[in-house]
């Protein structure tokens, strides 16, 4: 049971990490948010997004290792990253509003 | 005419690249086991695996180097040199008739896959 939970955590963490990283990019930020900002996110926010996103990806690696051990864990993490990135790609394309919550956490909406 | 040069480059890249990779990996395998104290099986496996990397590099190089003459010189010359090293290190290994026969009847060389 603990192993399943850790694996689920690894996937969730990867997904969140890639979502954060994607949202630092102008076109995806624009797709998700209702704002019409043309200049994208400020540099500080972008850096924060990348930092936390990378942290989440690293956390996903840790969870994989803890669940499966070094060899299976590494293979699982690599494939997990790929599927999570794909998931984020399709979310941004077909259901961008699902990531509004993540975006609000990254950059609280300020009056334009 | 262009098609001819392209074909030549493809042939040189694919076969010349393989030749230099195969010969170099054989030479290295022999050198490691004779001089560097590697066990024969270890040396073989290591150099064969490295051979694939070397071949990839040779392919990329062959298809991105502007001058075709240089591709021919390096790949063919390098193959001959590496083969020369093999024959110099060991009179028995890879003598011409053996090498040719090996190339033609490939299946007996394959060991069983998996179990």
């Amino acid at each position, binding site marked *: 049971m603990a192993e399943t939970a850790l694996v689920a955590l690894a996937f969730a963490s990867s997904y969140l990490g890639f979502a954060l990283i994607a949202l630092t990019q102008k076109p995806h930020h624009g797709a998700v948010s209702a704002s019409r900002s043309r200049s994208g996110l400020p540099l500080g926010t972008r850096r924060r997004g990348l930092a936390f996103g990378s942290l989440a990806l690293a956390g996903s690696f840790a969870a994989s290792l803890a669940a499966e051990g070094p060899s299976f864990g590494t293979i699982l993490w690599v494939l997990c990253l790929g599927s999570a*990135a794909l998931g984020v790609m399709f979310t941004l394309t077909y259901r961008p509003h699902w990531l509004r919550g993540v975006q609000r956490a990254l950059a609280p909406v300020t009056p334009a | 005419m262009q098609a001819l040069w392209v074909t030549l480059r493809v042939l040189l890249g694919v076969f010349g690249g393989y030749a230099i990779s195969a010969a170099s990996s054989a030479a290295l395998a022999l050198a490691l086991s004779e001089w560097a104290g590697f066990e024969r099986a270890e040396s073989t496996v290591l150099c064969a695996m490295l051979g694939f990397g070397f071949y990839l590099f040779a392919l990329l190089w062959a298809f991105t180097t502007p001058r075709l003459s240089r591709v021919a010189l390096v790949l063919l010359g390098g193959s001959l040199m590496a083969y020369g090293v093999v024959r110099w290190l060991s009179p028995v290994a890879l003598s011409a008739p053996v090498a040719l026969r090996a190339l033609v009847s490939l299946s007996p060389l394959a060991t069983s896959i998996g179990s």
Partner: protein
Amino acid sequence: MSVLHTWVGVVLGAVLFAIFWMGTLSVFDREIDRWMMPETRLGPAPSVSLDAAARTATTLAAGAKQWSITLPSERTPTLQVRYPGPEGSVLRHVDPATGVALDDAGTLGGTGFIFPFHFTLHLEWLDLGLWLVGLCGMAMLVLVVSGVVIHRRIFRDFFMFRPDKALSRSSLDLHTGMGVLAMPFHFIMPLSGLIIFFSLFFPGTWHAAFQGDRAAFNRETFGSYSRPRANAPGTLGSLDAMAAEAERRWAGGKPFMARVLEAGDAASVVELRRSYANDVSMNRDAIYFDAASGEVLGRFESKPVGAVQRFIAGMHFVQFDHWLLRWLYFGGGLAGCVMIAAGFSFWLESRRAEHARRGWLGVRVVEALATGSVTGIVLATLAFFITNRALPASLTLAGFEREELEVLAFYAVWLTTFVHAAWRPRAAWGEQALAIAVAALLAPAANWLSTGDHPLRALARGAFAVAGMDVVLLAGAMVAAWAARRLIARPHARLELPALVAPSARPAESEAASG
């Protein structure tokens, strides 16, 4: 680099798709076997006594110089007995609960047709198929490297997919998306596949290091203990006792296979191989016993570099028991298939106008080849499955055995798809996608009609492999139907889903798309 990537992709894309497709299916080759060989859809095997198995094996393999038994596993619930026969190696499945050999299934199945297709293309003469696959493996490595080099905006476009744009744009997005996001997989799979065959592709290394002594090479790299025959009758001792001894020496590792060499001779040797169900690495660990006395004659374990090769091979073979990873590998393979198909689509759409204007045949030829090699091979595979369920149990028609008829159906349908693609250029994609949707519905239906197993019943009685295959077939039918609708209704189809995209997201989307 761009020219290199394009040319290698277009010229070898057809073969690469075949390799990827068969490889993806091979991840579940044993599950496909359960589906194609209904007699082997047994429940979980009870703990099997090797001695009981040996009694069955000696009866089946009477007179053979060697035979092997492979114990049942989760994925293969039968006991498998292998021995050399007059026409090559014979494989018999035995019900482990009763010890009775199952009838010859009359099919090559996933492990006998689909898996070998993946690495030999069934071109056996002079191993040409194997060498062609090897060349494609190197080509795939070149494609990945060149793809990364030309995709300079790799991070900027990391998550970009614009299905609402022109087909050439959305195809390119899909191609790069599938390529980049699964890039470690697309690089490691061809490389590990090549490394499996290191002794075949670079025989010079062992020939040089071992001075041409092939027997020594096999012995030191793979084990292969042997000793001369005694040419006197001998007995076979207790395999269970040998297994217990092996487990002791392997600190708990269990044997999965026992092979008896020089069977019936006084100098007979029993080889026990260690299971790799819980390791990534496909070990070659073996312990050799004197057949009569059970005395340990020798033991083999790979040395460090050899162990690395076994790990890399294991990463490719995916023989470990791990369902999540298995499905992820399957997904990775499918991503590769989509990548190749999208690559073709991009090349065709971006050059269509120009080739038409200049009267070049390039697009027409590539389109026919691409259609046959993408939708064509998928359709041929489905025909293989349907034929398997449609033909009666034992059959010989016009001199062809049942298993040959299935293969014949595969190639006949495949050839037809090429002819169809050449005859109906633009429309062929969509029409074949529709045929795939129909066939993917027919296959589970044929399974139901011929065996009574449908997904719910299979799940209920624990035949997960069968249920899984039927579910994947049905899901594939839905995807193919969606694709067919897109491609037939509007030949210049875009990949958007207008009804499903929320209106509020649309203005932002077009802003994003132009951003």
